[in-house]
């Protein structure tokens, strides 16, 4: 096939000018694009009006499709559960028996915990839930690991707020529109979370690897203290993330770091909650003020 060529205008002066103009517009457009890239690299939260317009348009379709896909996705589980009903029933009965004793123990521990906290004058700070929503879509063609929430600033979601699921930490909000917000997932390289090991409080830093796992580095130890199976939770150091949100479980070790799998799989979680940023300094000041107030009242 020999393509006809408008791009060889010959002696037609008007066509020559038109061709020249198209080159000029294209090159100027590319330069403007470069400028916009530079701006969006410096300020990742920029152009939020433009982005949220796009997000608002696609939101209804994505959230309806999500409901459909979850319905289909659960269908095979329902069938499998029906087939396995007999053996599953016996196994679950045994599990219930063991769980009952553990529940009683846990209840006792909780009461003791509350009593000790009262002794230490530690007041339980509020859970700080700003909104609850669903993850409806993500940047599945792009290298950036962002997911979209179906709640926005109309529901109180602000950039910088942490997002968690019942299973564990999901990420933090980087942009919010009227009814949508973009969440930078835990597995993105740009997401760094201070963590601690649950068993002995060894502090560490979790950062995403962009492939569905996170890497965990211990602070101030020469040897890698982690072992496969260790669970890490947020430490609350430095604010933003509340302490004791489950983060990941260590899968394998690589020299000075541990590769861990996030406990909350964003593609499986049903409901996520957006929390207000945790500010330990303010929280400490508040509890100190409360302690003072109650101390002044008591005598």
């Amino acid at each position, binding site marked *: 096939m020999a393509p006809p060529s408008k791009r060889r205008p010959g002696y037609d002066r008007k066509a020559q000018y038109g061709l020249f103009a198209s080159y000029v517009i294209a090159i100027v457009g590319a330069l403007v694009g470069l400028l916009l890239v530079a701006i969006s690299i410096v300020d990742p939260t920029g152009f939020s009006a433009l982005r949220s317009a796009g997000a608002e348009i696609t939101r209804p379709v994505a959230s309806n499709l999500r409901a459909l896909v979850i319905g289909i996705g659960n269908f095979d589980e329902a069938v499998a559960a029906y087939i396995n009903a007999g053996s599953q029933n016996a196994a679950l009965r045994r599990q219930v028996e063991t769980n009952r004793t553990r529940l009683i123990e846990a209840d006792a521990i909780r009461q003791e915990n509350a009593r000790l906290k009262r002794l230490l004058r530690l007041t339980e700070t509020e859970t700080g839930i700003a909104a609850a929503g669903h993850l409806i879509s993500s*940047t599945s063609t792009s290298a950036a690991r962002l997911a979209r929430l179906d709640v926005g600033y109309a529901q109180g979601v602000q950039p910088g707020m942490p997002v968690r699921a019942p299973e564990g930490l999901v990420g933090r909000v980087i942009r919010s529109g009227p009814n949508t917000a973009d969440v930078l997932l835990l597995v993105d390289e740009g997401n760094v979370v201070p963590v601690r090991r649950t068993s002995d409080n060894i502090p560490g830093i979790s950062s995403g690897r962009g492939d569905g796992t996170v890497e965990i580095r211990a602070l101030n130890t020469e040897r890698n203290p982690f072992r496969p199976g260790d669970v890490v939770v947020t430490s609350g150091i430095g604010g933003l993330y509340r302490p004791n949100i489950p983060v990941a479980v260590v899968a394998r070790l690589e020299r000075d770091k541990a590769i861990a799998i996030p406990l909350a799989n964003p593609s499986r979680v049903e409901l996520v909650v957006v929390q207000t940023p945790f500010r330990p300094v303010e929280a400490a000041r508040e509890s100190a003020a409360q302690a003072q107030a109650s101390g002044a009242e008591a005598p």
Partner: protein
Amino acid sequence: MSRRYATRIGRPRTALHIRGTPIVSVLLGSAIAPLLPIIAQTPLLPPFGLMIFLAWRLLRPEIWPLWAGVPLGLFDDVMSGQPIGSAMVLWTVILLALDLENQRHFWRDYWHSWFIATLALAFALSGAWLVVHLAGQGGPLVQILPQLAYSIGLFPLIVRLCAALDRWRLP
């Protein structure tokens, strides 16, 4: 005219239908990612907007003005979650490079087109990765290799889709 072709040629078509079909197909391709309820842990879907854009360009070399990458790329950026401007630059650079290539090689066959598309997709995906990387997000470069592989593999299908749309849009 035999009855078989009576419904296929000489049909009434408005200018909007003829000119709008390629544009709408690229916009829909760009909008696939935010419409699908997939929470991806790695780059999962091929860049459909860019692939449809390229397929039209290779099928009909005159179809896009040289600046077409600027508005279509902007829409793709808004939809894909890339930093704004990255597809604007990359798509325009691809169009300019294809224009230069057209002046060198006038004749193209199937394999040549596929090879060009391979280079263009590799350039666009690695460029998009670089922009995300400079913004401090994403992951290692290795993670775009699977995405690149099936983008290249899927490209002939997208060309067939655009060819079918082309038959439908022209009178």
